[in-house]
Structure formats: structure tokens, C-alpha cells
């Protein structure tokens, strides 16, 4: 509702320009905006998932269940469920209504990325380290896994002419990144040999393959429409390409030809890119740089570098765009802070004094004919009241586009009071006036032990030194 009052010049800006804030809760390693853009999930080094409220810059929810660093995060379309994958080789689906774990899925390998299906929160696809990607159906208590292929689809001729070596190489390929198209009917997968595979979600068949590069595909991200793709690969080039509409029934995968639209790279410094993302409309591509403090912003119309976001004194890993605002968040590698870039809005002083107008140059004032006429006050009052004859509608709600407005029935995350005071995870605790001490390593991590997996738990409590007091918390049996 504020859009009509904001300076149109400010609204016309679509690229963030300056650091406007930062968020901190532990050491963040991975972030993701919710679809409505009011929440930012942040996975931490200690395995806790923190949900920030972007409006208050405060912590809205803390989710405990992982024991190692969080690798990736994915929101369900209604923003009620959050899927997190961790370096403890498990994926957890969280219900943000009460912060409970809906499902926990363990893998036999490290997880690169896990992405929720856009239509159902009970289905996700994950890319695993040195293993084939899996499509996991969590509708039942015991999740059902379908292994997907990483081998690119070869045409008939290619298959006939294939040497044994090539076939073996195809079989050895692994997938490094997976994600769903917006309709959820297809999975886009990137492999360690630079292939991009389009996999049908229901038949689990690779329908189309396209070799983007000879190097590893590190990360793939698409726009909300699903028609644009940005690919980060280990050859230090960020590629963008247009995709066809996969939901179109007339689309023939056999004749499909994909083409790389832009190749973004830094020719001078030969920088490699940590993470890439799209602006909401796909107009801009951002990439955080390895061993460097900058975020590069390219514009896709001309394929030119338009801006470098800077201001941090540390390398940045994950960089994410807000779903509809010129607002970028990035994680600092050293401090674990989340840095926020946005547009600075100057205060228009004419808004404070309604009698004044901001003008560019001097304007000669022409007074109205009756401006200084003296009239009886009652007359003025009466005239004023008589002018108020327009119809006023105070009830009809006009839809506003581009807002995080809630429809009825939309999920609203409950507001928890006292979330920060109840469990402060700061490493330093105050023990007196001006006196601080470092927290002992185990305190505040008791939640790790009352997990549902009792076998692992005993191993951990006995084997490691996280619990220093031996008399504490040893369960019988």
C-alpha cells in the first residue's frame, strides 16, 4: 500500500546499491528467501536453522535437528514447510507452524542440494556426493526413494557408435545439482562432466541432455517463470540460457536445441564464482566471488557488468535476491553474518511540511484572484463541507501487485515471543558486571541428544567430549 506514496524515482531503481543492514545469529552458511519474501531462512555452521523476519531483522524461529553444517534450504510454495539438508547426511522437512520435524530422511552420502517440489511439500529431489540423484517421496512415514540417472541421453546414432570407454564414462557421471522446474513436471540436473539433463519427474527418464561445458556444473538457478537458467561451473564462467516452456505439450525434446545466451566471466582477474542467482525477473545475474569481497551484477539485455556490490571485508558465499524487491542478501564466509544490500531512500522533506513543494528551479508564484480575500469563517466552513460530496468507498480492497500481501487461508507463521532471550547461542556469556567467559562447548546443545535416533546418540555422547561432565545425562539402556 505504500507504493503510491514513494518517490517514483526510487521505485524505478531495480538494482540494489548499498549495504543497508546485516543479520546475525550464529555462523550462517546457507540462506534462502521465502516465496513471499518476508522470511529468510539461514542454515548455520552448528546445524541450527534460523528463520529471520526481514521486516524486523529479528529471529522468528529456530529449528534444531541437524548436527552439522547446513548445506541447502528449500521452501515449500506456501512458505509453511522448509526442507534443509545438512552435512550430517540428512534432510529434514520442518513445519513452521509449530517448528516440528515432519520428516527426517537419511542418506548414505553427503548431500549437495535438496529441493522441494513446487506443488507438494512431500516430494523432493536431492543431488548426492558420488552417487546418483534421488527423488524422495515422503508422503508415507517411511520415505520412498527413486534413484535417477546421471548419464546423458544419447541419440540412436550416438548409442550405436559409442565406444566402451564412452559408455563407461557416461555411467560414471554423477549429478552435482538438481532442481524442479516451476511446474514440477521436470527436474533440471547438472553433472560433474558439464551436462545438463532434463528428467521427467513421473517417468524418471532423462528426456533431454545438453553439454554446457567440459567442467563440473557447480550450481544452477532458474527464474520464477522457469524460462531462464543461470549455471555456475568450475571453469570460472557463469552462463545464462533460455529454456522452452516444458509444460507445452507440443514441445518435442528430440528436436530441442538449447543455446548459451551469455557467458559472464572476469577476464582480468580470472575470478571463480562461489554462488550465482537471478534477480526476480531474470534481468540481472549476481555472483559472489571466490577469495574476493565483491558481488558482481551483470545485466542480461546487453550482457554487461553493471555494478559491483561491495562494503564487506570478507569473502561472500551464498548470494540471494529477494523474490520481488531490489534487495540482495549474502553470507559472509568469515563472520557468518548475512549482509543486506538495498536501495537507500532519501527522506523527502516536502513530505514533512505539506505547505511546501520541492522544485527544481525558481518558480514565480501567481496568486489566485481571491487568495487574500477576507471571508466570514462560517461561509468558508460551509463551503468546505458542501464540497465534500464525492462517493467514498472505504471497503473495497484493490489488489496490489508485487507485495507480500497475505490472502485469506495463507499460512502465517505464528509470532513467538522471547525467542532470543530464551536460548542465546552467543559464544560469550556474561557472568557478572563487565565479566565474560566463553561458553563451555557442550552447553546449550542438549537438544542434539534427545533425538529419535538413540543408537547414534549413545555413540556421540560416549565417544566425543561434547559432554564434559561424565555424570550428566547418560541414559539407561
Amino acid at each position, binding site marked *: *500500500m*505504500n507504493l*503510491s*506514496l*514513494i518517490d517514483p524515482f526510487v521505485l524505478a531503481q531495480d538494482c540494489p546499491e548499498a549495504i543497508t543492514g546485516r543479520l546475525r545469529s550464529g555462523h550462517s552458511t546457507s540462506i534462502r528467501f521465502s516465496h513471499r519474501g*518476508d522470511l529468510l531462512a539461514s542454515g548455520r555452521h552448528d546445524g541450527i536453522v534460523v528463520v529471520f*523476519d526481514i*521486516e*524486523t*531483522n*529479528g*529471529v*522468528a524461529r529456530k529449528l534444531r535437528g541437524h548436527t552439522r553444517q547446513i548445506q541447502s534450504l528449500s521452501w515449500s510454495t506456501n512458505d509453511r514447510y522448509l526442507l534443509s539438508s545438512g552435512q550430517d547426511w540428512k534432510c529434514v522437512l520442518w513445519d513452521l507452524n509449530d517448528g516440528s520435524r515432519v520428516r527426517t530422511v537419511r542418506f548414505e552420502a553427503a548431500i549437495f542440494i535438496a529441493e522441494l517440489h513446487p506443488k507438494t511439500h512431500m516430494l523432493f529431489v536431492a543431488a548426492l556426493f558420488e552417487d546418483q540423484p534421488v527423488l524422495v517421496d515422503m508422503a508415507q512415514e517411511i520415505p520412498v526413494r527413486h534413484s535417477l540417472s546421471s548419464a546423458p541421453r544419447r541419440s540412436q546414432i550416438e548409442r550405436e557408435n559409442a565406444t566402451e570407454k564412452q559408455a563407461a564414462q557416461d555411467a560414471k557421471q554423477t549429478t552435482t545439482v538438481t532442481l524442479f522446474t516451476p511446474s514440477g513436471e521436470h527436474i533440471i540436473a547438472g553433472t560433474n562432466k558439464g551436462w545438463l539433463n532434463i528428467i521427467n519427474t513421473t517417468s524418471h527418464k532423462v528426456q533431454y541432455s545438453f553439454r554446457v561445458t567440459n567442467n563440473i556444473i557447480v550450481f544452477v538457478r532458474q527464474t520464477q517463470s522457469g524460462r531462464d537458467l543461470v549455471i555456475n561451473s568450475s571453469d570460472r564462467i557463469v552462463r545464462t540460457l533460455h529454456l522452452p516452456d516444458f509444460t507445452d505439450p507440443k514441445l518435442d525434446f528430440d528436436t530441442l536445441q538449447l543455446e548459451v545466451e551469455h557467458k559472464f566471466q572476469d577476464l582480468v582477474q580470472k575470478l571463480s564464482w562461489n554462488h550465482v542467482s537471478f534477480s526476480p525477473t531474470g534481468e540481472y545475474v549476481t555472483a559472489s566471488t571466490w577469495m574476493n569481497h565483491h558481488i558482481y551484477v551483470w545485466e542480461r539485455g546487453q550482457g554487461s557488468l553493471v555494478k559491483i556490490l561491495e562494503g564487506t571485508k570478507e569473502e561472500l558465499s551464498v548470494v540471494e535476491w529477494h523474490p520481488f524487491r531490489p534487495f540482495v542478501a549474502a553470507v559472509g564466509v568469515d563472520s557468518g553474518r548475512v549482509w543486506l544490500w538495498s536501495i537507500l*531512500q532519501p*527522506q*523527502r522533506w516536502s*513530505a*514533512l*511540511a*505539506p505547505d511546501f513543494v520541492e522544485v527544481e528551479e525558481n518558480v514565480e508564484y501567481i496568486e489566485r484572484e481571491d487568495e487574500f480575500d477576507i471571508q466570514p469563517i462560517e461561509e468558508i466552513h460551509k463551503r*468546505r*463541507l458542501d464540497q*465534500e460530496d*464525492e*462517493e*467514498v*468507498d*472505504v*471497503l*473495497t*480492497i*484493490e*489488489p*496490489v501487485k508485487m*507485495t*507480500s*500481501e*497475505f490472502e*485469506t487461508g495463507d499460512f*502465517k507463521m*505464528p*509470532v*513467538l*515471543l*522471547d*525467542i*532470543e*532471550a530464551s536460548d542465546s547461542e552467543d559464544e560469550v556469556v556474561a557472568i557478572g558486571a563487565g565479566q565474560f567467559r566463553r561458553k563451555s562447548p557442550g552447553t546449550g546443545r542438549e537438544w542434539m541428544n534427545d533425538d529419535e535416533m538413540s543408537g547414534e546418540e549413545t555413540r556421540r555422547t560416549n565417544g566425543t567430549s561434547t559432554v564434559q561432565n561424565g555424570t550428566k545425562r547418560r541414559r539407561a539402556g
Partner: protein
Amino acid sequence: MNDDRNASPKRRREDEDGYNDFPPRKCSASRSPPANASPQYRIAERPARRYSREDSDDERRYYRDRRTSRSPSRSRSRSRTPSRSRSGSISHRRARSRDATPPPPKPTALHYKPTMILRGHKKAIASVKFSPDGRWIASCSADCTIKLWDASTGTLEHTLEGHLAGISTIAWSPDSKILASGSDDKSIRLWHVATGMAHPTSFIGHHNYVYSVAFSPKGNMLVSGSYDEALYLWDVRAARVMRSLPAHSDPVGGVDFVRDGTLIVSCANDGLIRVWDTATGQCLRTLVHEDNAPVTSVRFSPNGKYVLAWTLDSCIRLWNYIDGKGKCVKTYQGHANKQYSLQGAFGTYGGPAPYEYAFIASGSEEGDIVLWDVSSKNVLQRLEGHNDAVLSVDTHPTEPLIASGGLDRTVRIWKVGEPPVLADETTATTETDGFDPETLPPNPFAES
């Protein structure tokens, strides 16, 4: 301090307010459940029989029985006009094309009838608010307490005690689970409605009386206006000040959030109404009327396109704050407001969606409640019953109910009834005979 206290439109804070004619009442323990509540907290229900046409002995007996065993379903099931819904169908209204049937004529009068009088506060009531789910009525008073009443039965559910000075303002969180209150002890407290317990951390930061509070639509932010002339934006979860807005040069009278939470409106005794951007804290618009009368209360219209402001020149003005530099589109007059800050509300009447009209309800210092049609500025009804100034009026979110409270220490509930029938008059005078005059004062609504 005393001088500006008198000069400014304070909701009643004097200890002696001339209403000590009631027998002294002992202070019962707080949060007593209604079952064993001391008799002075039992409500004296007005037998609202004028909208029931066939008056009979049976019916009279029914009301008498009802006082001992309250059936909560009774008053809820009585809603006869289609209710307005704040969020659901509202967006579709008027989108539908007019059918072949001619539209029903726009009503020219409303017929709210008194249904309940809720007694218990020992000093003047500053604010009365329905909860967003419609289940509760909260009232806050200069006696440092907040009382929570069941909106359908009028039972006192909780008395919230903890503030050290009179309470000027209350606000419901959108999920109806938390109540925020601002007090003259400079603090804002949160209360858990289910338990009636105060939240352990209160919001401390204002340097003077907290005069007005409002929740954001998501419930994650709270805005407060104070006599220290500042506007604070609070992070509700962490109980910390997110932003301090150097708002005004006089005590801030009222604050409100727009329905999507992106704008805040504030008003002050300096006569200014300011509209703020929630995200950046910048002033986007300032509305000022030529007369510069102190603005004591302000709120957004249900669709967020207008701002309604109460001023101490006995006017309520509706501002279009969007177009141009802001323009006063309507002035509502007919009530008295020279001294206190009155709060009012928007309500709806008429038929379902396309024939739904809006009214404005406000109290008056003469003791009545005035309902105006928003567009025509005509007075639709005057509700008479309070013995002194009515400071706060609120409308039920879905049902045609109005709650009011004021200097006479009572909360009154009003409900839409049938248009008055003359034959009722005779029975109306006799009906109170069977009741205890202590709990039921003489009927001030009798038309004689």
C-alpha cells in the same frame, strides 16, 4: 507537568472522578474465573427484548433464568444481518455484475439496541476492543486493570493486573492470542489471553505515558505513540525498539497500521497527521487541516485508502492521503469532542457484498454514540445509554455488534435489532420489575 496534563486531551486519569456514588467494592483477587467471581463482577444484562416482538411471560422468564445459567449460544445465533468479513469476501465485492433484480434501497437508519452492560471497572474506561476473532472484548481503564470479557455472554474471563498506572490503550494481536497495553507507567505490556498472565518482559523505552499502540497485521511489529512525542516501532519477538521515529512536536495521540503493514499513521496534538513507511521509517505524507486542531485519534479505513482522524474541534475527518498532497474528503459532525481523545471504528451495514455500506461509529462527550454513513455523512443512529462521555467505541469484526466504554465505567454492548415497534413501549417499562435494582439500574433506554 500538571499544566500540560490539563491542557491536553487526556483520557480520564484523575483519581476522583465523581463516580463514587456506587457502594464501595472490595477488590477481588485478580484472574478469578467467572464461576466464582464476586457478585460485583457479574454482569447485569440488559434484557434486550425490544427486538423480540412477541413478548410473553415465557420470554420474561427466559431472561430471568438466563442470568443464572448463561447460554452462550443465545446471543451468537441472533445475528440476522449478513456480517461483514474483513478479509475474505471483501475483495470480491462489487466485482459481481448487478443482477436483474433491482438493488435494495440503501438503509437510512440503523437500529442498534443495548444488549449488555458490563460492570467491574473502578475508574473510567479508556479503550474497548473486540478481538480479531470476535470471541473477546478487552477493556482497559484508569484503575490500572484490563478486563477480558466473553463477547457472546458478557462473562468476565480475566482481570489483567500488573500496570502501575492507568492504561490508555490496548491492541489485539492478529491471532487474538496476545493483548498489548500501553500505560501511564511508560511501559507496554503483552498479555497471554488464554492464561491471563502477563508476558515477563515488558517493552520499556518510552520516556512518558504510552498513549496509543497498534499491532502490525502479521503481529511481528508493534507501533506505539507516547507523550514523549516519539513513535516507537518494536520487534514484538525480541521486545526491543527497532526504530524510533521523531514524529511530532507534541504528544502523539493515535497510531495505526495499514492493512498490509507497509504504512503507519500517527497523529498528535500539534494538529499533524503523518503517514510513515514501515520499512524505512520515513515520513511519506503529512496531513494538516487549516484550523490545526489537536488530533487525538487516527485510524486507517478497512481498505487502507483513507485515514480517519478525530480532532478536538468536535469533528471527525476522513482524509484521502494518497492523491496529491492529501485531501480531507469528509467531515463528520454531530458529536461533542473538545476535551478527551475519543476512539471510534468503521462498521458495515446493508446487505451482502455489493450492497454493503460502511458507517463510522464514535462516542461523544455528551454520553451518546453516533453512527454516520461514510459517504453521505448522515447520522444513521444515536445510541443513548452512557451517563458520561463515551471514550471508546469498537465494532465486531464479523457480527453487527458495537462495544463502547467511557467515563461512567461501564462497557456496553449494542446489537442490531428490528426497527422499533411502538407497541413495545408498554412492556418496556414494566419488564425491569423483576430484577434486582442493584445489578440492573433503571433502564436508560426506555423510550418514555
